């Protein structure tokens, strides 16, 4: 049960709070390039910008990294550790920045987990619960590429790692072949999610600057998702640990 005080606090913050924009898509779709261009543009527009990357919590990342290097994670452990990493970043990086009015760009958000973990055989409802209470971003930009383009771009740069190529579930020894199979399935899940969660889909095979221009337009015309309507549970959960934010000023 969320108290009246917390409801009021969230309502009052609505016009002062920042915006959360999630960049989603398969590896090799150009998210990072677009994220950097977008960040520079937002700064030029006078916004304070914070970036958060997938699996980057200083507290949890070392735990995940050690287990990934040993190839010791089952799909459920993989999901739970990434959910813990996400929770820690949400509570310590994303929500404080939004509360203070900054724009947060998430280079991958929980949809990454939904797509990858479901391909790894986890039930969608269980993965969603691991990330609950869900905190919905204002906008999700989905960078759409074919599995072939993603595979070609990755192969030109590097050999994908064991988990990146899905070798933990494909039983394919060649990382590039495994990646091709895995990313095809992940893209299938992303396509399903894009309908459910109303992604703004960009053709990531278009020239870089065309995509950037489209992102600017979508951002300027995009609507915020009301915190009171969509994110009250997640914010109330977080505010329980942050009494310093209970002063509405």
């Amino acid at each position, binding site marked *: 049960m969320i108290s009246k005080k917390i409801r009021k606090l969230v309502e009052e913050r609505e016009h002062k709070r920042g915006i959360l924009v999630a960049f989603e898509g398969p590896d090799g779709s150009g998210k990072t390039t677009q994220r950097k261009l977008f960040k520079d543009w937002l700064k030029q527009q006078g916004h304070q910008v914070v970036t958060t990357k997938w699996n980057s919590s*200083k*507290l949890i990342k*070392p*735990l995940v990294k*050690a287990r990934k290097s040993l190839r010791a994670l*089952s799909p*459920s*452990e993989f999901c*739970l*550790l990434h*959910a*813990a990493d996400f*929770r*820690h970043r949400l*509570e*310590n990086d994303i929500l404080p920045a939004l509360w203070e009015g900054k724009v947060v760009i998430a280079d991958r958000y929980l949809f990454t987990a939904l797509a990858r973990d479901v391909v790894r055989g986890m039930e969608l*409802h*269980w993965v969603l*619960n*691991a990330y*609950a209470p869900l905190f919905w971003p204002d906008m999700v930009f989905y960078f759409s590429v074919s599995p072939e383009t993603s595979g070609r771009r990755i192969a030109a740069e590097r050999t994908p790692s064991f988990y990146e190529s899905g070798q933990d579930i494909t039983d394919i020894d060649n990382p590039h072949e495994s990646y091709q199979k895995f990313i095809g399935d992940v893209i299938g899940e992303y396509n399903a999610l894009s309908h459910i969660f109303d992604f703004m889909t960009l053709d990531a095979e278009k020239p870089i600057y065309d995509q950037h221009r489209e992102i600017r337009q979508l951002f300027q015309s995009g609507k915020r998702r009301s915190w009171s309507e969509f994110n009250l549970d997640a914010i109330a*959960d*977080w505010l*329980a*640990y*942050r009494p310093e934010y209970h002063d509405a000023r």
Partner: protein
Amino acid sequence: MPGKKARGVLVAVDGLRTADLAAGAKTALRTLAGKGGVSTWDASGIFFELERNQAQPGIRSARMLLLLYAADLAFRLRWEIEPALDAGMNVAAAPYVDTAVAFGRAAGLPAKWLRDLFEFAPAATGRHRVEASTRRGAAGFIDTACTILGDTGTVRARAAELLAPANLRAK
């Protein structure tokens, strides 16, 4: 060809303190026929590593700690509990799900979230609770989690209450 061995029995032993859980697990295994072993908390080393990393700033929420507990339990199930059961051994999981649920409830988390989080863990054939004593021993999950959380004693006391053996009998 030798016949397939019967699967062992899983018993859950939950409580506040590691020393009490160890004693409770031995007692629970003695009531069963056949060989048995104990699966203890943090076999994966997640919390050991987390405590080493404690200098990192920021809040640590009960949800995050429970996601890590669940990851450790998934590890224990995969490497300790399931293989032993398949080999026909009995296993006392000490602690198991109830300890985590008690901590979560004491920290104010919804019962449904906790139930759904741990749905991957198979139901134990027997459930036991151990009384908190003054035995010396390493801190268990609840004491460690309460320390990480910065609990002033409220969460621990509430978890102790929820884990009391009388509470299980009353259900």
